[in-house]
């Protein structure tokens, strides 16, 4: 296993995802002799995990069972330890595409944060690209470095502990793309420009507040970036439900009940293809939104380093 290459079987040292049920999972470091507690009972790594295929159903000590999944950057994003506010896959997807990343791309990122985006970037630029990620918080930089090592992607990333606004990315004229998720991105635009290749490249800045975006756009224009474009993307998840709606009782029109063409007692809606009729109810499938959803993560401002 590594985060950039699929493996078939679970091996000692792997990071695997224990899937307990819908949206309930956690990562586990697979180690000979170790046991992991779950609400369904204990998982013994030596006998229950190592050597099994990813995607297997594993029965825990109390008889309940879980699935063991191969890690992906997306599963990691859903399960990583939060050291900061993190970027989720919806934003990450748009960032990756709009920065035109692909195998071989050189990317600069700041800050590393909890490494949610970093893992996705590394996955996309592997095996021939590289990520330079800068984090001003020492503890976080070290933790990220440790995770990259555990996840088998150490060779694809360089973590630097410094202030990007003061000291930049530590590289110049090398990057195809730069990503900024810092409180004052406008202070780092100059450094971003010099990190990018001479022939140009793409930049993205993520900011929760519109004032940050306004300053950043001004700075980008000042530094000669073109195609400046601010986007916001929001995920809508729908739960698939079978809904039953009651047919109202409008009474009988004495002996005659055809006056409105809709007979409420005998279920016989030919014209209603979606009606699976029980007595007095109509059933249908619907994708219903959650009651409360994420209303904002941040604005994504993209731009192109111009040629001149």
């Amino acid at each position, binding site marked *: 296993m590594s985060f950039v290459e699929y493996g078939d079987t679970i091996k000692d040292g792997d990071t695997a995802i224990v899937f307990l049920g819908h949206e309930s999972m956690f990562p586990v470091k697979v180690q000979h002799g170790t046991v992991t507690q779950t609400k369904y009972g204990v998982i013994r790594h030596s006998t229950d995990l190592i050597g099994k295929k990813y995607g297997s159903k594993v029965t825990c000590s109390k008889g309940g069972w879980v699935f063991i999944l191969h890690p992906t950057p997306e599963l990691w994003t859903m399960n990583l330890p939060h050291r900061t506010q993190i970027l989720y896959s919806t934003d990450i997807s748009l960032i990756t595409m709009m920065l035109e990343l692909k195998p071989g791309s050189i990317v600069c990122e700041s800050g590393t944060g909890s490494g949610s985006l970093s893992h996705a970037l590394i996955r996309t630029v592997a095996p021939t690209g590289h990520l330079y990620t800068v984090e001003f918080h020492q503890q976080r930089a070290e933790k990220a470095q440790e995770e990259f090592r555990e996840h088998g992607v150490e060779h694809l990333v360089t973590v630097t502990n410094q202030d990007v606004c003061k000291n930049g990315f530590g590289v110049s004229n090398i990057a195809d793309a730069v990503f900024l998720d810092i409180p004052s991105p406008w202070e780092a635009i100059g450094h971003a420009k010099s990190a990018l290749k001479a022939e140009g490249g793409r930049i993205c800045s993520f900011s929760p507040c519109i004032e940050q975006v306004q300053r950043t756009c001004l700075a980008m224009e000042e530094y000669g970036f073109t195609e400046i474009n601010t986007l916001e993307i929001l995920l*809508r998840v729908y739960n698939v*439900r079978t809904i039953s709606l009651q047919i*109202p009782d409008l009474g009988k029109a004495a002996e005659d009940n055809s006056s409105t063409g809709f007979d409420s007692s005998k279920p016989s809606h030919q014209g209603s293809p979606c009606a699976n009729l029980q007595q007095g109810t109509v059933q249908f499938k619907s994708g219903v939104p959650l009651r409360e959803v994420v209303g904002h993560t941040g604005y994504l401002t993209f731009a192109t380093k111009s040629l001149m």
Partner: protein
Amino acid sequence: MLKSLDTAWAHPLAAENFVDQCVEVSVRKIIFEKQWFYLDNAIGHIYGTTFEVTSGGNLQPKQEVEETTTETKEAGTDNRNIVDDGKSQKLTHDDIKALKDKGIKGQEIVQQLIENSTTFRDKTEFAQDKYIKKKKKKYEAVITIVKPSTRILSTMYYAREPGKINHLRYDTLAQMLTLGNIHAGNKMIVMETCAGLVLGAVMERMGGYGSIIQMYPGGGPVRAATSCFGFPKPFFDNLHEFPLSKVESLLSGTFTTETLPSDPEENTLVEEESNGLSEEKQTSLQETEEEPAPEAPMEINPAEEQDTMDINAEDVEFKENKEKENKENVREKQMKQWERRKKLKEAAALLSEKNADGLIVASKFHPTPLLLSLLEFVAPSRPFVVYCQYKEPLLECYTKLRERGGVINLKLSETWLRNYQVLPDRSHPKLTMSGGGGYLLSGITVILEKGKADSSNSEALKMEEPSSKRCRLQDLPC
């Protein structure tokens, strides 16, 4: 000014989304979000007054708020120096409890928490504000008495009791009132199972002018939310009700008042209660879960949603009615029944004129049969609006109405609502938003030509509405 028996609303001063946390205060002792207080001191103050809850549960008009935030404006520029070791707050739970027991005011407790936080000064301004808001909400007991209105009631119901109003979001209700051209002097038909909220909103917009016929399922109309508006008595003079179960017979001309919706009439009240109170259960049964709902990342604590509205005006009235009834003799019962027959006949007569100025539907029932029947009572060139929590039934309703004819300008729509935080250098859409506010189907009635009413083929469908496209194709007016 707040009088002794007014219906008013109290809410903790939870900063931005003010109205989401109101609780009805038409009785004297209130329990709200784990706090209790007496309302006696509020009477005589004008609406909008803010009170602090003292340790004894009494209300005390609040002094001008000192801005805690402005006092402590020493902020870090970022959070690089903050090490999260879970030990940043020096006050223990016991310390805080001791402060509370001593009767220290919430505002002071929050101040002490700030002073005893080792990381507060290093936090960014953004993080400081977040911290203060969180603590304020937890420790400060501040309520404001506000005057009830559609705005207050619909936002409150949507935030706290969405199941009781079929998840009708307040902006969707706002659309209904406008699309329905609700105004003074209208004769409206209202069919809702939203605890009487929609009825109340229509009544507010009609201001006591005109008349309303409320259609109801079961034994009697539900008006729990309607009673919260605090309408003056005359508003109810022209409010009529008519049972859904008599609609077909009224349309076919076989209507009689021989059988009342459900006799003996005691059932009316019992059913009324069960309609109001068991609605939550019915609604939750309505959806069969295909899969446990994924939890939204920032879902509000469900435990906090429960402790609300346990005491309401309807309950009190109901008990009073019941006691009275027990004392009533047979003659009084007959008298009442005669009264009900008379009112039923009046409502039937109003409907039979078939000249209503509009139709508003917002119910848990399938909308199609309701629309097909109730539109018969509406005059031509009048708007109608149907709400449904789901889109699918309205797709069917749309198709059936097109087949029926006599309606134009049909529109299926939804609104998206975003709330914003606007603060210097920290403006952005709110981090959570409503997942959905339901769907509306609206249209305008026109004269339905006889002979075509029964034809439901696509020929008639096309003829019913002139299509500018078809004409363009032929390049000549048809």
